[in-house]
């Protein structure tokens, strides 16, 4: 049979999933479900901004079960998302781009940054806490890839 290489249990289960859109003007948070630990490997999300003029100031966060910050990732002012823009954020473990933002067309922005190595127990949250969101701004296409273990 040769060298049959099965995925080791220690490696966890690789899963990909989408989150429902939050209400307009609201950030999104994903809560690690009971009975699992998650290692978030990559996430993508899209913000469609209204025409109300204000800088949308990116901030990605990890909270523990008491709401304490465990990680905060800001983007610099030069890379804020602006009114009328659609902004896609792709963050992943191993990404060597940091604080990276690029207008692919006039109103379509692509952003990259790195995720920290992490192992999040049940109840921890990962998501956004943007500054300057307008009430009509909308998050969508929120997708996560993770390794997970039952505990």
């Amino acid at each position, binding site marked *: 049979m040769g*060298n*049959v*290489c*099965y*995925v*080791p249990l*220690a*490696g966890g289960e*690789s*899963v*990909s*999933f*989408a989150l429902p859109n939050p209400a307009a003007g609201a950030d999104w948070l994903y809560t690690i479900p009971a009975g699992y630990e998650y290692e978030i*490997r*990559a996430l*993508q999300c899209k913000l469609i901004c209204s025409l109300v003029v204000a800088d949308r100031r990116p901030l990605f966060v990890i909270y523990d079960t008491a709401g304490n910050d465990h990680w905060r990732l800001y983007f610099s002012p030069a890379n804020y998302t602006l009114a009328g823009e659609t902004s*896609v954020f*792709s963050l*992943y*473990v*191993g*990404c*060597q*781009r940091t604080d*990276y933002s*690029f207008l*692919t067309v006039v109103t379509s922005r*692509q952003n*990259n940054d790195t995720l920290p190595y992490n192992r999040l127990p049940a109840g921890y949250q990962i998501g956004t806490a943007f500054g300057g969101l307008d009430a009509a701004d909308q998050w969508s*296409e929120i*997708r*996560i*890839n993770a*390794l997970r273990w039952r505990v």
Partner: protein
Amino acid sequence: MGNVCLTPLEGGEIVIITVPNPGGTSDWIYSVPAGYEMTLLSVTWQVSTSALVGDRYIGYFSWGPVADAVLYRMLTVFTTVIIAGQSRAVVLCLQSSRTNQNIVNHYHDSLPEIRYTPGMRWGGTWAGSSLPGDQFFNIVQTVIRWRV
């Protein structure tokens, strides 16, 4: 017998996979086959552009695992545009500390450390910027794979 160091099964199997050239102006896509999980260690491909004048943008995507309702995707757009009549090579690998960099017509950037499940896909894209006569070719990738 001595200290015999066999490759650990836990480490998976390293394989080289060549992806067929796509049609002209088309993106290339690789799908993880049934029965395997994979981590992409490196991928290189070459890019040639026709003499038609226009900026070209190159990107890297991953999708899946549901093909018809994209569940997951990443986009890496290289900001240095390719102009008409030029050739480039794209070199992506895990842990590359060079990002979005073009040296001697080679683009360098990092890859995500993800274990892809069957049906997930990744590939190179023109991001809609290709023009007639443009071509991706010589697509070679190194992956670690496991049976599932």
